[in-house]
């Protein structure tokens, strides 16, 4: 397990180092205006929404599925919150409504996958497309601006000298760790993703688990959406959360969780999300034109996936067969019946 965290950690360290070379004061953290201040804080703060979405995505991918709709959920949740606030609702109520709607949308995804039996990529594609339209409908294509000071706190404010967003992400991370490792949700998720039929025969009802993880993913996206909207004190139905699902999937994959499901690593995901966020920052700080962010992302994706691919490793770094007493595995072309 720890070996999988090695690569993303190394990459992150390299990126930070690179930043340090160009900006000597990069790693410094000062106290200004009564709160912590510095580049590292910025990375954490701007990366918080991605961390949130990636956490939810991790659980979905661990069951062997995928969720393309989180970006649209981010947009819908931000739009709903801002709309409610601009019409006079209190901040807490508005946020609650936004997050609740997100939860329902996620449960709907889970229903399509677990009960109707639609492939996850297809099922979540529906909400991805329709949801974006819904967000645009709510905002009427405009940008809804809100001026509520309380709302601003969520994304832009500070608590205990740290940006509120970071604390919120930490709380959600802690909650996720609690649910999956303290309670037994993690074990059941890894079981379903690792071998669904064996899990069924062990008495697991996968339906409940699947609906739960999709609902949770949408919940995380909903919270992230509120955070994003609060950060800019406005909701943009067209652009909020655009393509964040791709970054989230990348974060999960970089963190070592396989797309095929099974064992997952929350720490890996957080590292992966931070790598992506730091990558963006690095590009700015070393003076490379920001347009090339995507190019670097492409290289990182390709590099990580190739390194994780056993086919690549065996072709490029041929090794001796390790003498482990394993049952004969099948990269077989067919399994002759008994």
């Amino acid at each position: 397990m720890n070996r999988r965290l090695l690569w993303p950690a190394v990459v992150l360290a390299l990126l930070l180092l690179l930043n340090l070379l160009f900006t000597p004061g990069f790693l410094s953290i000062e106290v200004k205006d009564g709160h912590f201040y510095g580049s590292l804080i910025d990375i954490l703060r701007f990366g918080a929404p991605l961390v949130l979405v990636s956490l939810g995505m991790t659980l979905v991918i661990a069951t062997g599925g995928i969720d393309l709709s989180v970006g649209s959920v981010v947009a819908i949740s931000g739009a709903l919150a801002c709309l409610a606030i601009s019409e006079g609702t209190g901040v807490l109520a508005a946020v609650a409504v936004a997050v609740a709607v997100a939860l329902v949308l996620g449960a709907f995804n889970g229903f399509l996958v677990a009960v109707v039996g639609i492939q996850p990529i297809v099922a979540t594609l529906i909400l991805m497309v329709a949801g974006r339209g819904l967000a645009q409908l709510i905002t009427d294509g405009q940008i809804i601006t809100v001026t509520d000071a309380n709302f601003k706190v969520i994304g832009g404010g500070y608590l205990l000298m740290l940006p509120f967003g970071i604390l919120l992400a930490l709380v959600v991370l802690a909650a996720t760790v609690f649910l999956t490792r303290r309670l037994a949700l993690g074990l059941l998720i890894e079981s379903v993703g690792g071998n669904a039929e064996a899990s069924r025969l062990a008495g697991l009802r996968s339906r409940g688990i699947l609906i739960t993880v999709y609902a949770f993913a949408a919940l995380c996206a909903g919270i992230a959406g509120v955070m994003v909207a609060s950060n800019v004190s406005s909701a943009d139905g067209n652009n909020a959360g655009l393509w964040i699902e791709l970054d989230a999937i990348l974060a999960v994959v970089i963190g070592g969780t396989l797309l095929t499901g099974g064992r997952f690593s929350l720490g890996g995901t957080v590292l992966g999300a931070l790598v992506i966020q730091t990558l963006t920052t690095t590009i700015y700080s070393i003076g490379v034109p920001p347009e090339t962010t995507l190019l670097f992302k492409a290289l990182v994706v390709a590099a990580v996936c190739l390194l994780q691919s056993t086919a690549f490793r065996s072709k490029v770094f041929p090794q001796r067969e390790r003498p482990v007493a394993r049952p004969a595995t099948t990269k077989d072309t067919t399994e002759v019946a008994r």
Partner: protein
Amino acid sequence: MTALTGAVVPRKYLPVLVTAGLFAAMFVAGGARYEGFFSTQVVLNVFIDNAFLLVVAVGMTFVILTGGIDLSVGSMVALATMVAAVLLNAGWPPVAVIVVVLLIGAGLGLGMGCMIHFFEIQPFIATLAGMFLARGLCYTIGTDSIPITDPTFTAAAQTQIGLGGGLWISPSVLIAVAVVGVAAYVLHQTRFGRTVYATGGNEQSARLMGLPVARTKLGVYTISGFCSALGGLLLAFYMLSGYGLHAVGLELDAIAAVVIGGTLLTGGSGFLIGTVLGVLILGLIQTVISFQGTLSSWWTKIFVGLLLGVFILLQRVITARKK
């Protein structure tokens, strides 16, 4: 219903027929509701406005038929427009530009195919990397829109090919129709095309049957890259500009068109005519909305999403019956 119609019509055609029916219904309903809707030119306009999407969707169909997916098409289209604009403005002759752009598309497609087949990286991830790469190259070349003033391209944009009776189409439509024709021929009359279907049906079996699965998989991604590049050229004709922000989200439109057209995302089943109908339906939704005037255009996305949902459920019901 399946049992009834199954006797009259082979079950495999059912999804496409449903799509065709839906298209006809939309057209008639629109014609009843809006003045001037019920005319052939309206349908032709859909072709004109979506010729580039049709070409891209054809490439996507090949990939999806093998059970894969290609997320890079939108970015490739944008890259094609950028490269074309830059080269034309640097004085290259249009024919050379066209050839180079097509080669780039095919080359990138082949690269992704290699990653998918030889290194066993999932198509989703490999083409996602391709998407980032292509879009990133776009932005690296330039972040502003680059106008195209080359006479050949301008001519392609402005020429109206009369069909008689006041009807007209653009040259892009002819190109798109030609692409559809060639693709249909390949899929139904050549070993390569049949292997595409076989690979999607059961890749392991296809391998055991001795079919050239490796070459086929590489081939479909190359074709998709080529079609994306060609679609990009058609878009360049239409917009007369190269711009890194062209065709954002186009891959979703292409996938939607293919799915609505009745092709299964799991591979092995589907027809090109379905894709054509899918593109038409997407275009028709847009037309309805513009005729309606009062509906905001984001209803398009909602409609498309709902339509996708309906078709996927339909596919699920039909395939569940098969078992």
